[in-house]
């Protein structure tokens, strides 16, 4: 099959059974790859009601047809499972070099089931697949463990690891790869930890066949040429994603002091220029990427000097301004610590900021914190709380379940400023002044993440106060952006450098030999979107509109200062946004797809199942 390795690897850690299953043409055609495969297997194989941290949950590691192939940035691997953060479908993706290596070993997806009897890692070298004990790695930092495995197996192995937070099943534990890149969101590291799986190491030496090599080379050459000629490329190579910080601050979107504010008086300290000048050591790129947005940096704290990849914008926003730290070097050190502990920097930044606000309001006291002063602006507090979270000790136990869970423990009104949707902490764009972006966060299938739809510029372009028409923009983006995760290719070249989508439409037949148009692929993306919604509806009888709500802070508190001072979103506007969104999607006003909608999308069997359960009509 063109564009694919052709096999799915299934590993049961409980029984040590290793099996290969041929990838079917139907699955590849209908679900494309990556997140599409993850959603498909998650719905079919994870039983409703399964404990996300129990052996019945499955981790699906999958890439898509564009990964590992001669085209710009075919570097994306999706990790999917039932998320311990949300109890719903979750996925997170990572760049680097894992995706291609997995295909070169012969696999489009790896389904990991059960639980190993002892700490183990999965070794894959082409056909040779082994579950190996790795007691010596257990307890190591995520990057430390990756380096140890590289030393043992060789640099040519591509490795994904977890840190202590994953081992201890912190619900926002990340998966590390390529010395500092992460599949950060949704707690995929906790799922690995629950399975006693410290790492996956892959080496492959096979080819991936493509349908039309000449056609592929022609389109890919044009794409590379266009990228290299792009006037913004130099800025990207220079500053990476850190360049967005100053802009985000200027438009009132930069999370500050647990999203109380959306502009930060010290934001200039975090600018891309300052980062480049003060801490960047060298640039770093993923597979076949000319942008090289990764930045290897150096940071020192209390006499200890560390090296890390990052920080990029999200980390700077959630750890930097959201915890009110003082310099990019402080952010970088906190970033390094989270990477080694195996904590998602977005959720960790939220969790620590939430604890800081609780402390400053007296909701938690020194008695709870073991004498620690947890105040905004303190890197020391960040460091100590992050360690407690990873170890699940002291206040870290409550925070290890995420801010929603911590608010349920600490109460006293803290629920209002637990900044999350569906249990996943909010990423780097405060949206009281951006209704479409707010809707994007509310309706994102994995919780409050910006990756499915990023539409702040739409709010600015058509007017921040405008509601009408914004749901359509969010839906449009929710189909385009996740399609990249199915194809196994990075979307930065399109979304940031403006590489036309037409190139990707031309790549698809050249790689796969299929005749799908771009619109056909978008229809499949819509189908996958409805499949993950169906996962939630099957999971919980009461799942619906109430799960698509922002934290109360955004409704109750106007922005206190900065460029959007006085703004807040109203209940009326939120309801209008949601009604319009549900109507356009063919969902009822409780946010459930109708039987008719699911049938239209080719999900008739699933519609019948949910209808028989009384969940949809």
């Amino acid at each position: 099959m063109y564009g694919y390795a052709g096999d799915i690897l299934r590993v049961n850690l409980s029984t040590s059974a290793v099996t290969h299953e041929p990838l079917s043409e139907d699955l590849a055609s209908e679900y494309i790859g990556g997140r599409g495969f993850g959603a498909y297997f998650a719905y079919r194989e994870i039983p409703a009601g399964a404990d996300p941290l129990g052996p019945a949950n499955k981790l699906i590691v999958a890439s898509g047809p564009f990964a590992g192939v001669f085209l710009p940035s075919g570097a994306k691997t999706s990790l999917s499972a039932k998320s311990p953060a949300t109890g719903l479908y979750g996925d997170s993706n990572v760049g680097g070099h894992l995706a291609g290596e997995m295909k070169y070993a012969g696999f489009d997806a790896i389904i990991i089931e059960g639980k190993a009897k002892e700490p183990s890692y999965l070794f894959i070298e082409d056909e040779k697949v082994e579950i190996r004990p790795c007691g010596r790695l257990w307890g190591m930092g995520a990057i430390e463990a990756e380096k140890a495995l590289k030393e043992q197996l060789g640099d040519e192995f591509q490795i994904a690891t977890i840190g202590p937070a994953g081992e201890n099943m912190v619900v926002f534990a990340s998966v590390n790869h390529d010395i500092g890149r992460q599949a950060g969101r949704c707690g995929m590291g906790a799922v690995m930890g629950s399975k006693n799986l410290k790492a996956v190491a892959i080496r492959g030496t096979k080819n991936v066949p493509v349908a039309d090599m000449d056609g592929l080379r022609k389109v890919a050459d044009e794409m590379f040429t266009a990228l290299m000629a792009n006037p913004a490329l130099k800025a990207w190579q220079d500053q990476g994603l850190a360049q967005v910080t100053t802009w985000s601050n200027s438009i009132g979107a930069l999370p500050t002091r647990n999203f109380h504010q959306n502009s930060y008086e010290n934001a200039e300290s975090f600018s891309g220029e300052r980062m480049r000048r003060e801490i960047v050591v060298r640039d770093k790129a993923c597979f076949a990427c000319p942008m090289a947005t990764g930045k290897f940096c150096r940071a020192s704290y209390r006499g200890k000097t560390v090296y890390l990849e990052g920080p990029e914008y999200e980390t700077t926003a959630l750890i930097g301004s959201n915890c009110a730290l003082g310099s990019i070097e402080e952010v970088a050190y906190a970033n390094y610590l989270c990477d080694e502990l195996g904590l998602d920097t977005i959720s960790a930044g939220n969790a620590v900021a939430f604890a800081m606000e609780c402390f400053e309001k007296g909701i938690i006291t020194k008695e709870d914190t073991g004498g620690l002063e947890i105040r905004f602006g303190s890197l020391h507090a960040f460091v100590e709380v992050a360690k407690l979270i990873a170890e699940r000790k002291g206040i870290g136990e409550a925070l290890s379940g995420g801010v929603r869970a911590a608010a349920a423990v600490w109460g006293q009104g803290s629920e209002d400023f637990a900044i999350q949707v569906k249990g996943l902490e909010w990423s780097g764009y405060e949206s009281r002044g951006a209704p479409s972006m707010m809707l994007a966060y509310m309706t994102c299938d994995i919780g409050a993440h910006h990756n499915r739809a990023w539409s702040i510029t739409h709010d600015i372009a058509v007017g921040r106060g405008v509601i009408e028409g914004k749901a359509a923009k969010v839906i449009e983006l929710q189909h385009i952006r996740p399609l990249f995760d199915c194809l196994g290719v990075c979307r930065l070249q399109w979304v940031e450098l403006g590489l036309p989508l037409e190139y990707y439409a031309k790549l698809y037949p050249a790689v796969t030999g299929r005749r799908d148009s771009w619109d056909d692929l978008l229809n499949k993306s819509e189908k996958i979107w409805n499949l993950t919604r169906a996962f939630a509806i099957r999971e919980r009888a009461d799942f619906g509109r109430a799960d698509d709500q922002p934290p109360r802070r955004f409704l109750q508190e106007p922005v206190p200062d900065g460029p959007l001072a006085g703004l807040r979103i109203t209940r009326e506007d939120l309801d209008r946004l949601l009604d319009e969104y549900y109507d356009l999607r063919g969902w009822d006003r409780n946010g459930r797809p109708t039987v008719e909608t699911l049938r239209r999308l080719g999900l008739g069997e699933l519609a019948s199942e949910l209808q028989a359960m009384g969940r949809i009509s």
Partner: protein
Amino acid sequence: MKVTLEFAKVLTVIRPELPEKVDLDLPEGATLEDALAAAGVPQGLWGITLVGDKVCGTGERLSDGDRVTVLPPVSGG
């Protein structure tokens, strides 16, 4: 002085009423921010700005004949 602003295609998708290119006649000493305002680009819609092939902040003073490239803000992936 004469200055030319070129808008990246992706920016014209976000705001269709922007042309791909606009020629401006600005007073001596005008800054890049003045040029963006004169072209009617709302604050927040531009990200990176270049004068020639050099990345510049919006406080940059322009000279006669400058070619400015305007790119949208980045989205953090």
